């Protein structure tokens, strides 16, 4: 049986003493956490261990002895170390020894009691960086690999035990180099916290500030939940405007940030940090945009170009309609219906142009105020832009709806009249097509309508096609904006930064490097942490977004387009909870 001993690298040069750590019997491995130096009083060591055990809920014990021979071998020390086994009984008893020069290591594990056969096990020595293991967070693989019976410590279960042990015994490492306790311990130590008045002040002030801001936010959300906003037109507008959605989303973020509850686990802490980073980036980008917009009278330029652009779009639409009213692409259209539809749409455009001209004196002021919203964040400004695009292309939306309704009416009428034409009908109870005997007048009127609808279908379908294409263009632009907003909303910036600067903090697993492998000597390995890949970082720590996911797959989208059902770009509030 091979026994694994995890040994911190920082203890390799420590003086001789006792090995303090945890024995994991399932993995048959010993995790050494610290070395207690001579001289000590055994009862004090036991008290310290009991205290650590109580704090961390981990079975910390004395695992064996550590002997670092700097000078000539001392026979007395060897005997003394052997005698310690009786004072701190542990199974198996580890004896770790480092010879002079540091190149020669010896390691033995002895069982003293039955039922194990007395003798020595083979010991594998694994060095680990205590600080990295303490700070890192192990991410088990997404798909658990096939695990052998009696798996080696590289398997996730064993590793998780090691990581868990080190992380839980933080209390042991709390004392820094300058502390003078009853027992001298050697382990990884922080360099000592540098006291700063500013940091201390910030720490003290953060509690009340959080409380105050949380109160303010709850006030804002209470106003938002007020009954006036639940009335029909306002609630409808609120659910359709992406700006309102974005504001609601950000409000939730801020409430999460300023909540006075402490984060319970590392995942929640990470989420909070990610939210802070996302909000900060958002506001910074928004302020950048604001300074760009309000400098050098760009707003005026923008307002001056916006109206001609809207006019131009309307003119292009007029040309398109006039083309459709002729013989577009040599298609055989029904002239009378074509003229009626074309005039109807032209009148609409006329209305639209007059509306735009009515609005034109106020556009500059509106833009100026809209520009101010960028200080709430780039995402809010982008959502506003998306809403403005939706409002400015309202005529296209109207055309699309008229075309789609007309087309849908025709398609539905044709499909049911085609069944009548064949002497069949749709049986709603049995959900199938049954044969049916119709009256003479039913047949006559049905066939008459069928003929008329069939010959008018190409005209309607062409109008529907053209306006659907225009609509899809607008939807695609809005979709791009929403995608950008979603990216800013959900990108885990803090986690990515952590992965970039401190790769060991997010561990995917470990790898071992062989330090020494010679017969008659213990195998010595160095454990190094494998960082988490970037895609998994993004996948694991992605913040929940407002749900900009497309509602339909491509196939169902095409089917809906063909049957003339309306396509909405508005994002639906997702019920998915994180």
């Amino acid at each position: 049986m091979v026994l694994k001993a995890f040994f911190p690298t920082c203890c390799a040069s420590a003086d001789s003493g006792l090995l303090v750590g945890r024995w994991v019997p399932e993995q048959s491995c010993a995790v050494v956490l610290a070395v207690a130096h001579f001289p000590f009083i055994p009862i004090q060591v036991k008290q310290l261990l009991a205290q650590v055990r109580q704090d961390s809920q981990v079975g910390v014990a004395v695992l064996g002895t550590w002997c670092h021979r700097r000078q000539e071998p001392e026979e007395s020390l060897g005997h003394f170390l052997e005698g310690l086994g009786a004072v701190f009984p542990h199974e198996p008893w580890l004896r770790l020894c480092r010879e002079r020069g540091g190149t020669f290591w010896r390691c033995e594990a002895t069982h003293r009691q039955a039922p194990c056969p007395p003798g020595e096990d083979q010991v594998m020595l694994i060095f680990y960086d205590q600080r990295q293991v303490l700070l890192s967070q192990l991410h088990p693989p997404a798909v658990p690999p096939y695990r052998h019976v009696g798996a080696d410590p590289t398997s996730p279960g064993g590793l998780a035990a090691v990581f868990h042990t080190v992380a839980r015994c933080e209390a042991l490492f709390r004392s820094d180099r300058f502390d003078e306790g009853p027992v001298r311990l050697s382990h990884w130590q922080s360099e000592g916290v540098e006291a700063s008045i500013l940091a201390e002040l910030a720490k003290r002030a953060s509690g009340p500030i959080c409380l105050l801001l949380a109160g303010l936010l709850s006030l804002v959300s209470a106003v938002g939940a007020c009954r006036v906003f639940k009335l029909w037109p306002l609630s409808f507008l609120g659910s359709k405007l992406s700006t309102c959605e974005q504001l609601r989303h950000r409000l939730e973020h801020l409430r999460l940030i300023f909540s006075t509850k402490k984060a319970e686990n590392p995942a929640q802490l990470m989420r909070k940090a990610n939210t802070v980073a996302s909000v900060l980036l958002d506001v910074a980008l928004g302020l950048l945009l604001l300074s760009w917009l309000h400098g050098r009278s760009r707003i005026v330029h923008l307002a001056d170009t916006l109206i001609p652009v809207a006019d131009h779009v309307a003119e292009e639409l007029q040309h398109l309609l006039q083309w459709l009213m002729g013989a577009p692409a040599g298609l055989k259209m029904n002239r009378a219906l074509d003229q009626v539809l074309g005039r109807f749409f032209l009148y609409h455009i006329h209305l639209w142009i007059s509306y735009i001209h009515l609005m034109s004196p106020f556009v500059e002021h509106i833009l100026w105020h809209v520009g101010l919203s960028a200080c709430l964040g780039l995402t809010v400004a982008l959502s506003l832009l998306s809403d403005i695009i939706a409002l400015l292309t309202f005529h296209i939306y109207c055309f699309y709806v008229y075309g789609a309704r007309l087309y849908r009416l025709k398609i539905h009428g044709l499909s049911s009249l085609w069944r009548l034409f064949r002497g069949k009908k749709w049986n709603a109870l049995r959900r199938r097509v049954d044969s049916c005997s119709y009256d003479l007048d039913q047949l006559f009127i049905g066939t008459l309508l069928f003929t008329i609808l069939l010959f008018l279908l190409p005209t309607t379908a062409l109008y529907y096609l053209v306006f659907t294409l225009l609509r899809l263009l607008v939807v695609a632009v809005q979709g791009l904006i929403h995608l950008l907003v979603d990216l800013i909303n959900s990108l885990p910036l803090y986690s990515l930064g952590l992965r970039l600067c401190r790769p060991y903090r997010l561990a995917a697993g470990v790898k071992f490097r062989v330090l020494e492998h010679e017969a008659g000597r213990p195998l010595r390995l160095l454990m190094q942490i494998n960082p988490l890949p970037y895609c998994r970082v993004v996948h694991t720590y992605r913040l929940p977004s407002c749900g900009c996911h497309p509602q339909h797959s491509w196939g169902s989208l095409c089917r809906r387009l063909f049957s003339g059902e309306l396509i909405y770009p508005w994002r639906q509030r997702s019920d998915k909870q994180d």
Partner: protein
Amino acid sequence: MCAQPVTNTKEVKWQKILYERQPFPDNYVDRRFLEELRKNIHARKYQYWAVVFESSVVIQQLCSVCVFVVIWWYMDEGLLAPHWLFGAGLASSLIGYVLFDLIDGGEGRRKSGQTRWADLKSALVFITFTYGFSPVLKTLTESVSTDTIYAMSVFMLLGHLIFFDYGANAAIVSSTLSLNMAIFASVCLASRLPRSLHAFIMVTFAIQIFALWPMLQKKLKACTPRSYVGVTLMFAFSALGGLLSISAVGAILFALLLVSISCLCPFYLIRLQLFKENIHGPWDEAEIKEDLSRFLS
């Protein structure tokens, strides 16, 4: 079983059963097997004139299509004023309506429970809808090529003839589909006429000749076969006369078609009966003769 030697055939008599083990190979049959062979059980003896009489339904339908096309031609050329056609159609419809009740003495009306008020309503629906839609019909196919319309009408009228219910019991027969195709063709053709009044009267005429006329025919054939033969002959000659005024070649071809269907085809059918070899025997699939519906309920 096949490997067993056939030694004791004399002792054991072969039985046509499967539920007992017998010392014969699976494909063994007795000499008595072919004794049950029967030939032409269901073959019928046809009388020549009876077949000719039955074929008159086909003749009638062909003539209806022919008369419709001829009338459309006259309207399209402007040789027939729509008022005349409307008057004639109205008069013949009224006569047909009276005849319809007179022939069987109101028996059919009592059975079906159709009231005169319902008849009037149907007629009003026809007239109103056709009149209301006639301007739409007029401009409906303006941009479609005339040849396309002709091709479509020809296909639809052929379909009307194919799917018409001539009294045969077949899966292809669908009187609904056949009537709808005829109406479709008439709407297509009517949209080519010069004015909307023409279109309205054409569609009305199509209803009369494709929907109402076959109903009257069926009743005539069932109640007074002699007068039916007379009506058929008159109708056929008038259709031929109408076609002759348009094109002599077409009239000759149509006459040949009518003669071949009414005289040659029955003759050929009776001749071919002699070659009929329909065998029946124990190998036929089982047929349940008894009425099992009492077990099902």
